[in-house]
């Protein structure tokens, strides 16, 4: 009875709502179409064309060249392929190190800060979060100073008797350096012989250069605060009764942390890992403002290479092609990660986030916040 009246009222205003619905959504939709969908389609065309950067890419003297640009990058055998391979190598190491590190550090900070008896934890949270709001350009400037040859970091290292490296000018890979410490300075034949994308297997295994490591530290420094907030939110929603039961069962703290806290944090872990993965493949600001790929191209990243190939070298087709390959990489990694964590990971919480609210449940309020926080990171991530 009640339902019927409600429906009839709704249908009474439905026609009116279709028009206004579209009207309300139209401005944002048009913007998204013009500045997101159309650009991507245009760039797709450019990546298959020989447009050289003068005038419109749709003019008559621009030709379709098939996969030529992609081929130059993936199997050209020239400098383009080598640069692309180098950029991928650099960024891959960046991802491999930053993602676990920032996750671990932010979880660690969250657990530390989220202590009831702790006084002044607001202060600590503020301190840890503050680097996350500063712009990556400003952060890069500070980092260049801190890590300069006779800069603050090396000065502090010298107090404990360590002769610090010349950070942003040191192009040697940290794993190569590690091996060199054990007297291995040249790779075995089977590694130096073969190559992928113009970089030898031995080159792929170099690890990030010392310069890139400084950027890795910076990424951890600037993103851990944001992720810490995500973890704190999750920790505060933990089911206390399970923990209590575990204490009754006599599990010690360490066990409780691994067996009870971590599994309950899985959805948040999943979010943090996904966001980290997406963000870490988009390193651009630091490289643009700081190193421009130097030293020895070891801070070159696909995002920066795409930009400089197009804007500095007039190879617009190749630049666009790099962007699309990068896009594919990000999608593949995200899907892959989803797949690896699939059974348990697709939490209700996460689904709900994309499906709308359950206003009746008590956690509804944190939902909006979690969503907001995730988007905070998303909007920041291109410059972690």
């Amino acid at each position: 009875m009640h339902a019927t009246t409600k429906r009839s009222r709704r249908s009474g205003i439905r026609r009116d709502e279709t028009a206004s619905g579209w009207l309300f959504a139209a401005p944002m939709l048009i913007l998204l179409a013009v500045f997101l969908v159309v650009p991507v389609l245009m760039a797709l065309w450019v990546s298959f064309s020989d447009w050289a950067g003068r005038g419109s890419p749709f003019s008559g003297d621009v030709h379709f060249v098939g996969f030529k640009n992609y081929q130059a990058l993936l199997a050209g055998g020239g400098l383009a392929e080598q640069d692309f391979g180098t950029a991928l190598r650099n960024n891959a190491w960046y991802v491999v190190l930053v993602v676990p590190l920032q996750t671990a550090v932010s979880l660690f900070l969250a657990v530390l800060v989220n202590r009831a008896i702790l006084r002044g934890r607001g202060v600590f949270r503020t301190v840890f979060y503050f680097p996350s709001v500063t712009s990556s350009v400003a952060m890069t400037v500070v980092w260049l100073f801190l890590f300069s040859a006779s800069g603050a970091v090396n000065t502090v290292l010298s107090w404990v008797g360590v002769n610090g490296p010349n950070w942003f000018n040191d192009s040697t890979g940290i794993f190569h350096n590690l091996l060199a410490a054990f007297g291995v300075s040249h790779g075995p034949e089977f590694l130096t012989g073969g190559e992928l994308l113009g970089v030898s297997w031995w080159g792929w295994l170099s690890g990030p250069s010392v310069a890139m490591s400084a950027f890795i530290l910076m990424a951890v420094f600037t993103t851990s605060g944001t992720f810490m907030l995500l973890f704190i939110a999750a920790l505060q929603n933990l089911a206390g009764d399970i923990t209590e039961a575990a204490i009754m069962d006599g599990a010690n703290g360490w066990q409780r942390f691994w067996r009870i806290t971590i599994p309950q944090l899985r959805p948040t872990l999943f979010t943090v890992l996904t966001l980290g993965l997406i963000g870490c493949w988009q390193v651009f600001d630091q490289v643009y403002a700081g190193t421009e790929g130097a030293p020895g191209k070891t801070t070159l990243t696909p995002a920066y290479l795409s930009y400089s190939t197009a804007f500095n070298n007039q190879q617009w087709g190749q630049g666009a092609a790099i962007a699309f390959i990068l896009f594919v990489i990000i999608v593949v990694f995200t899907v892959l990660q989803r797949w690896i964590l699939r059974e348990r990971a697709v939490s209700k919480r996460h689904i709900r986030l994309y499906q709308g609210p359950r206003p009746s449940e008590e956690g509804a309020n944190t939902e909006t916040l979690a969503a907001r926080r995730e988007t905070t990171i998303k909007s920041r991530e291109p410059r972690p």
Partner: protein
Amino acid sequence: MQRSIQRWFIGGAAAMAASIALSACGSGYTTSPQKNGTLTSSNTALTVMIGSSGDAETAAVKSAVADWSKASGTGATVVAASNLGQQLSQGFAARKPADVFYLSTDALAGYASNGSLLAYGDQLTNKDDFYPSLVKSFTYSGKFYCAPKDFSTLQLVINTDIWEKAGLSDSDLPTTWAQLASVSKKLTTPEHVGLGISGEYARIGSFMAQAGGSLMNDESTEATADSDANIKALDYVKDLLAAGDLKYAKDLGAGWGGEAFGKGLAAMTIEGNWITGALRADYPNVKYKVAELPAGPAGKGTLQFTNCWGIAADSPNQAAALKLVEQLTSKGEQLAFSKAFGPMPSVKSAAPEWKSANPALVPFLAAADYAKGVPAGKGSADVVTELNSKLETLVTSDPQTILGATQKNLEALAR
């Protein structure tokens, strides 16, 4: 699912159509102003975009352009770019480029090949006054594109205080590689290194020239990177590095050779005449002298760097732009620029006056006869960047391998 994908496509197509419709009424692209031969002419004001080394340069160019503007009645404004290459690229793509701009040799090929530049060199009334080697630097596929703005060669810059403290005199000025090695050793102390240079082809290449080598032949058509001469040059540099008498500026904690020199971290450096302006501005207390680089196995040799005044093919007022460039490259203006911020005139007629005004800097000009340009073919800048990244670790690398890779990359370009 099928249907939603379909809708997506329809939406995309609609958006595409909308944007094209928008572009029709937008001011995005106008038709190409000029086809062949004749210069465009209108009363549009000119924009001059420069990559300035500092306030002195910006002010000098501004005042010269303003004078011309007043005399000619054509408006003109000077814009100092923060990132010249990127801003030019975007301007060309948007078909709204600056009319007149600084252009480096390594950017010439890229812009010339996509038709962004006006090849106006042969229409210059003062064409024959430019040094021939500079004209060659700005000739691409047979066309003389733009008027050389200024130039410099690389020479040895010596901190005279340190030099004298080490007990050296004018008679010790190195004229051979062996002598350079020995004074570098004498000048090296815990406080400073004997020779500190930027670790890149644009400095180390001068040793290649002294050994008789180069990366490409003079016409930039054939790769000659892996020649014995080049290997000999890198071996020599590597030995100096290994001995610790030569260090790269970066390893000294400086951005470039001039900074290492100015800060007293290096007793000698290899730079062009731009170092004089930097030293005057940032390190006014450093006393120095300029000496010609020593001769190598193949005699004297050095590299030469130059910029030109580019004019955009899409400029609506090329005729006025050409007049402006003629004025800016005239003997009088170039000598005025030289006085204001130190560049060396690109015209022969200015040489005598310049030499008498700058007796201490004569070595920079004296080398104009034998200095070599850097490779300027399309894509060669990338190869040089790649070479630079290898040169950073020269001390632990094999010169032959480095040059072999460069040879391969250059050959790929020549093909």
